């Protein structure tokens, strides 16, 4: 055996640890891997804390908003502020009820349009530890029927899809992630093109030819061609348009508030969701158009 000088032992250890991890990376890149045991263990160990933290933070936030934040004010200011708060609260409640009614109406319409699609409400309990990837953890998992590649929405619009499902939790790849994508089309012109994330708050619609007319503020909806989301779910609105070669550079503002997700709906179906049967509608005709590409598939 060749003895390693003690001052070089840490360098040898460093090289060994890095080499091992590079090999590990190489193995992962070569394989289309399923969920790994280390992930299952780690997620299983951390998510109970996240669950507790979610309720704990909610309690702390409630206590702070309802007690501590009202300290250090004079009585008169306190009375006026309370009166103001009461009025604001009433206004917020009315706005909230109106918004809730809109959301419920949207949800009801969606459920009526797709009665054969089972759905499940879930709460967001955590985000990715990687600051660059856009994923969130839900408090529902395989036990509730959630599987990989199921669509996730809010009443406002598309959120993303399930990329991992554990026994009690699941992980969702948000539309804003660089590896995410959804089959979409412009609501008015019915021009089809996949919409994907670029790692920023806005999405990108890449395959719309320069000759096609697109207007700012135009709504973008799902095309249903990705076989994950039903047709005509809101994806977002066009917020930027630039000429490109050969396609326009279109940025989409997501319909769902992906930066502040708290509750979502999981579409509990792995079957291709059926499109509406009224084949004579412009949407159905638009589906028949050839699209430059389908929804991107994320890297495992």
């Amino acid at each position, binding site marked *: 055996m060749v003895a390693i000088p003690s001052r070089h032992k840490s360098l040898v250890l460093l090289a060994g640890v890095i080499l091992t991890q590079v090999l590990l990376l190489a193995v992962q*890149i070569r394989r289309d891997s399923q969920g790994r045991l280390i992930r299952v263990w780690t997620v299983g160990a951390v998510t109970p804390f996240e669950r507790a933290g979610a309720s704990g*933070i909610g309690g702390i936030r409630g206590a702070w908003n309802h007690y501590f934040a009202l300290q250090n004010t004079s009585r008169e200011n306190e009375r006026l502020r309370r009166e103001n708060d009461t009025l604001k609260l009433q206004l917020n409640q009315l706005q909230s009820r109106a918004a809730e009614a809109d959301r419920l109406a949207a949800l009801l319409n969606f459920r009526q349009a797709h009665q054969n699609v089972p759905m499940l409400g879930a709460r967001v309990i955590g*985000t990715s530890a990687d600051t660059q990837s856009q994923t969130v953890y839900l408090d529902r998992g395989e036990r509730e029927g959630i599987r990989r590649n199921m669509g996730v929405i809010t009443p406002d619009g598309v959120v993303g899809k399930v990329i991992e499902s554990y026994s009690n939790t699941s992980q969702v790849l948000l539309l804003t992630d660089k590896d995410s994508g959804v089959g979409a089309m412009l609501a008015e012109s019915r021009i089809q093109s996949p919409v994907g994330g670029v790692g920023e708050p806005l999405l990108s619609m890449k395959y719309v030819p320069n000759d096609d007319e697109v207007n700012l503020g135009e709504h973008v909806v799902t095309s249903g061609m990705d076989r994950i989301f039903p047709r005509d779910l809101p994806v977002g609105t066009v917020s930027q348009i630039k000429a490109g070669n050969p396609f326009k550079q279109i940025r989409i503002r997501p319909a769902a508030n992906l930066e502040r997700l708290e509750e979502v709906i999981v579409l509990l179906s792995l079957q291709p969701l059926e499109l509406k049967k009224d084949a004579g509608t412009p949407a159905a005709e638009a589906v028949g158009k050839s699209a430059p590409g389908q929804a991107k598939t994320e890297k495992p």
Partner: protein
Amino acid sequence: MNEAYNTYDLRVGESHIEVHKFRGGAIAAATIVALFLQTSVPVYFPKFAVLDLPLLLTIYFGLSRRNPSTGLLLGWAIGFLQDSLSGPTVPLGLYGIAKTIVGYLASSIGARLDTEHPIARFALTVVFFGLHQFIVGVIRRMLLAQPETWFTMRMLIGAGVNAIVGVFLFMLLDRLRKN
């Protein structure tokens, strides 16, 4: 290693650099808390995601322990856990490699310099944050064939924010040291 001693002196030339030890379970507990905060708080405060608490822990414990082998293994463990919690879009080893190198360099520098002063800690955190982003960028480009931007304003802001938070966090973590 004699556990009876809480700290001991590492003599480099004429300077005496203290090697710190921590209360039992302190490193593991701090790591779990950091990972928990890293994954939970951004749900409620999205801007919190600019912080990289696992990196700050790697730097702090590397600078304090001042043993390159311990530093790199600790960096590997923290990075590996972070990879595991980052989901299938981040392969196991991405942050593991970056934090292994940061842990090794932090403990190597800690063994040669006195890094207890807040200004030194601020500067080192900025440097290590940049190095960490650079290593992650290299791995993403070279091994994963993913397009990666070398420099963004977000990284610059991230370096500053992490360094400022690091100074105060390190003072907090100093309390975990054995007296």
